[in-house]
């Protein structure tokens, strides 16, 4: 059963001289537990697609149905709340809150969800152990390496127990060892936490790990291959 259903999704950016069609009448579905990669050359619409699925960028037309709900029919407030409860984000440049420690960054979303303190503490430990940086719980992002920061970002994305995680080029700023570790962690969490991962990537190592690879060219699906 699909948890995400994208129908006739189009995004047109109005440039001053000409229009740019970033995503062109696209139809896709994602099942629960998928580990999917969206690949394609720069400008093919990967990030725009992820942003529209994640409720960050409003489509020009079409629908993004998540668990039967067209998220773009929600008010701004409800959409934010929807993201909080259902979607985890991992960004290319980590984007942790610089003034919070690794533990506090992971805890932040649970605080927004209003989870009790003891549950939060337990989950922080659980997640930081899962991503292999339990010993850096009290460190602020500027004291962590890129790979460690991205692992905190993954822990943060998982903290709210989302339906799926959207990761935009998560390994783009990492060295090969960190990339390998991160992919292993994400693959493991995909199985243990039963959470769907959707990546946009250029990285062949990520593509290799993905069980489904969707190739976008000029905002259209060129191929959609499940392994």
């Amino acid at each position, binding site marked *: 059963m699909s948890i995400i259903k994208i129908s006739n999704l189009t995004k047109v950016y109005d440039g001053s001289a000409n229009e740019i069609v970033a995503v062109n009448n696209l139809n896709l579905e994602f099942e629960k537990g998928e580990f999917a990669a969206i690949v394609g050359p720069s400008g093919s619409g990967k990030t725009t697609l992820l*942003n529209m699925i*994640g409720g*960050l*960028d409003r489509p020009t037309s079409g629908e993004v149905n998540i668990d039967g709900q067209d998220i773009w029919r929600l008010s*701004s*407030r409800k959409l*934010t*709340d929807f*993201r*909080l*409860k259902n979607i985890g*984000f991992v*960004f290319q440049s980590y*984007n942790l*809150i*610089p*003034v*919070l420690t690794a533990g506090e960054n992971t805890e*932040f*979303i649970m*605080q*927004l*969800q209003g989870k009790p303190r003891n549950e939060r503490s337990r989950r922080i430990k659980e997640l930081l152990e899962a991503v292999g940086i339990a010993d850096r719980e009290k460190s602020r992002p500027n004291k962590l390496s890129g790979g460690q920061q991205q692992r905190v970002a993954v822990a*943060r994305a998982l903290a*709210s127990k989302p339906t799926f995680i959207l990761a935009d080029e998560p390994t783009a700023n990492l060295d090969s060892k960190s990339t390998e570790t991160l992919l292993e962690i994400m693959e493991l969490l995909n199985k243990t936490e039963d959470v769907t991962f959707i990546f946009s990537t250029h990285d062949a190592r990520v593509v290799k790990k993905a069980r489904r690879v969707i190739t976008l060219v000029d905002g259209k699906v060129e191929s959609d291959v499940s392994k």
Partner: protein
Amino acid sequence: MENLKIAWRNLWRNRKRTLITVASVFFGVIVSTFMSSMQEGSYSTMVDNVVKFYSGYIQVQNEDYWDHKTINNTIKLTDELLKKVSSSDRVSYVVPRLESFALASTNDQSRGTILIGIDPAKEEQMMGIGKWLSSGKILLPGDDGILLAAGLADYLKLGLNDTLVLLGQGYHGLSAAGKYPVKGIIDLPSPDLNRQLVYMDLENCQEFFSAEGLVSSLIVMLDSPYDLPHARRVLNKKIKSPYTLMTWDEMQPEFVQMIEADRAGAVVMKGILYLVIGFGILGTISMMLAERRREMGVLVAIGLQRAKLGLILFYETVFIGLTGVLSGFMGSIPLISYFYNNPVKLTGDAAETMIEMGLEPNMYFSWIPSVFYNQVITVFIITFLIGIIPVANSFRLTLAKALRA
């Protein structure tokens, strides 16, 4: 609580910038408190001088006296009237005075003066006239001499035991003339009064003006200047025609206008100061918003409501203002305390200018709470208003653009 924690930590991400902004608020508060304290201190000293040496806080007069200040519009001094006024709430002293104009002459010089007949014992109690005595002795009840203000004595070139001739118009057109020895010279703090006052024993003065048993006013002193509205209300109920009440500000409208005009000038100065403080904070907040646009986008993306983001940013602005305002407040206390206890004595041209303007050549400072809290409240309101900008910004944030920033 989490929002406050994040806001507080955010504040110190760029420690130097925050400290510079806080310092600008700190110095702004110090300067504006200093200015206000100096201003209010000068006003209250001026008012105090005028009230003590001349008008009192309230005067009980004949209802025609103020419009036609002649010796004919005086009132009969009765025990009943004295008791009625002195028994009123918040009234500390009541002293009778007979006041009129007289020409003071010596062999070479003449000048118009204000001649005031006083009850020496009561006046001593009320204003401690003795402490302003520069030479000679204070008046005693029944004394036939006079106390001469130092400025007037200088002008007339009179010293102790010299004789002053006074000429005036007495009750119902009678001539008033007399020769009086200078018993003492008093150096009054108000240069204006120092140029024209002559004090005489009340009975002696009544005799000079042929106005036996009459006084031009009862001077009412209060426990505190702030008691004036209450005392006026109480006395208004007791004092009926042919008497009337005049408060010091009604009797000295030019003086009040001068203070108001001076206050208005200071408002402009302080306004400029506040503007500088405001733009300092605004600059910091604008830079902070520009730098953290992506971070704000991330926070909303992961599920922070825009209103809460706005609140965090608002707290940051308020923290900057509050830190500056409170440190400025704390810093101004010892500063103002020092100057309150050690008024600045002006010398040279500055002192001359002040004297020419009829003011004391001293800069007094005020310690009243409003001097402090007015600045604190004003800067806090400025900060509060600037705090609205990041809140509005958080609602206008376009997520996809912010994430690309």
